[in-house]
């Protein structure tokens, strides 16, 4: 039973285990194991998780968002991978048409042309920055809506590692560029 109770600590969010895990384990080791304690630990872990869905009431940034539990940096790396083809294409296009260095773009053009001209390939290249933006921003952003004294208040909280910030800024730039490209090609 004690092993089960200690296992149940994993239900708590990572930030909670980082802050209280060690002393909580210490306390659980001192307490007599029982089904009541197991249920108490599970219930309270779920409560903490539910509270994590609401905007934090803490000041001074004592608590990281539950986004930390969602491995934001891993998702930022995934976002980088998703927008890599678009980034490459846009960078080389800018090099050729803005800076005047045509070599790299001309080198990949034969390989890229079938992808860019295929509807699926084009859709992927245009939408990839938006997908990357969501992958990098959603895990580190918490939106809150509350109805207080007859007024609706909305809050946005962001706790983003540097990598996520870089990916978000890059994806916004790329998304803007690809939107202009799409408008120029289709309208």
């Amino acid at each position, binding site marked *: 039973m004690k092993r089960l109770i200690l296992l149940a600590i994993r239900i708590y969010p990572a930030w909670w285990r980082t802050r209280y895990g*060690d002393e909580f384990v210490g*306390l659980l*080791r*001192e307490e007599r194991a029982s089904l009541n*304690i197991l249920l*108490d630990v599970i219930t309270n872990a779920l409560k*903490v998780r539910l509270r994590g869905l609401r905007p934090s*009431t803490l000041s001074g940034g004592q608590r990281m968002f539950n986004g930390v539990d969602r491995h934001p940096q891993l998702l930022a790396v995934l976002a980088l991978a998703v927008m890599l083809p678009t980034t490459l294409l846009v960078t080389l296009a800018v090099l050729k048409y803005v800076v005047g260095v045509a070599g790299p773009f001309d080198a990949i053009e034969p390989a890229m042309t079938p992808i860019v001209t295929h509807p699926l390939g084009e859709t992927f290249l245009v939408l990839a920055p938006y997908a990357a933006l969501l992958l990098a921003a959603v895990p580190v952003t918490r939106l809150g809506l509350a109805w207080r004294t007859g007024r609706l208040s909305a809050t946005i909280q962001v706790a983003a590692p540097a990598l996520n910030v870089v990916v978000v800024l890059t994806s916004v730039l790329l998304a803007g560029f690809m939107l202009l490209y799409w408008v120029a090609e289709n309208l």
Partner: protein
Amino acid sequence: MAGAEGRRRGSDPSILVLISLAAGPRHGHAMLRDIAEFSQSHLGPGTLYGAIERLEADGLIEPLPSANRRTPYRLTRAGEDYLGRRARELERLVGVALKRVTT
């Protein structure tokens, strides 16, 4: 703080923790024993740490340096003020209740 008071109003574990810490700093195990003794309430460790987390977040208690996986907590000044206000409020309510049931 007004919002935090509103949230805590019906939350007994938090009040029990504050009352326990009013006697001096205590770690989790000592709090559970003390609370069981003065209130006959047997809080679970999860409930206790739920209360500790909220009270710490609201600045009513604060941790002291840990040793051997035991972290003592103590009331902050805001915690003492809050407990005093709640105690006086409860005293007033108990007074009203006693008057009404004995008349």
